[in-house]
């Protein structure tokens, strides 16, 4: 198995991801933004698949692209106005400051990543034995059992919380 990743595929997926992310920010229509999220998450799923995380890629598509975005769109629709135009406008006075801050942060992070000596090189990847699904299952129901259960409780709590919040505790 060739350990080298396909650069063309990587750059394509990265470009789609970043462009759709920018589109989320810059779209003036909230619904379009939500739809661009699907594109973004799909390309992230592609990136996962590239680096031996095929199960995660599937989860990403199902949970993020499938469920979360649908949920967001649903809620947007509940609070809808007559028109969805200009619902996602940026605040003009903050654009400069925010772009300086974000750009500076990106620049610093990139500088660190590029000049880092401790990051692993590409060529010492150990091939994982077995497929990722059974590996994850082993970990999930073995070493991370407790965390798994807690996550289940968390989801339950979140569900109840969401129901209570959306319904309103004071409403009969």
């Amino acid at each position, binding site marked *: 198995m060739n350990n080298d990743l396909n650069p063309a595929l990587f750059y394509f997926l990265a470009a789609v991801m970043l462009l759709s992310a920018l589109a989320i920010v810059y779209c003036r229509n909230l619904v379009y933004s939500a739809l661009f999220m699907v594109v973004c998450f799909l390309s992230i799923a592609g990136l996962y698949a590239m680096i031996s995380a095929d199960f995660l890629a599937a989860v990403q598509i199902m949970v993020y692209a499938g469920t979360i975005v649908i949920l967001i769109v649903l809620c947007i629709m509940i609070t809808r106005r007559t028109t969805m135009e200009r619902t996602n406008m940026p605040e003009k006075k903050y654009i400069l400051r925010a772009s300086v801050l974000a750009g500076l942060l990106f620049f610093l992070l990139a500088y660190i990543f590029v000049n880092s000596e401790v990051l692993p090189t590409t060529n010492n990847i150990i091939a*994982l034995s077995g497929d990722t699904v059974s590996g994850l299952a082993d970990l999930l129901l073995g070493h991370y059992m407790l965390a798994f259960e807690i996550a289940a409780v968390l989801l339950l709590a979140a569900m109840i919380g969401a129901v209570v919040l959306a319904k309103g505790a004071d409403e009969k």
Partner: protein
Amino acid sequence: MTIGITHFLIISAALFCIGLYGILIKRNLFSILMCIELMLNAVNINLVAFNHFLPTPNLSGQLMVLFSITVAAAEVAVGLALIFRVYRDFQTVNIDKLNSMKG
């Protein structure tokens, strides 16, 4: 040039910063929620990339992402419920109008 961990880290940093930028300039609660999701995904990419490129024998990194997605799902559910509640109570989803904590 082969694609290494640096590439993944840089695109995840870019995604993170786009999310941050979105959070800072948007006034709509839904947009802000979406941008938070972007930032979360940037972190997930990091985890998966480290799991792939670091000489680790198991899938702990990917498992972290799995948990992260779980938490994110919970967060979105609660967050949307909160937004919904705010919309019902204040008739707005504009964060500028929700400043009752102003000092």
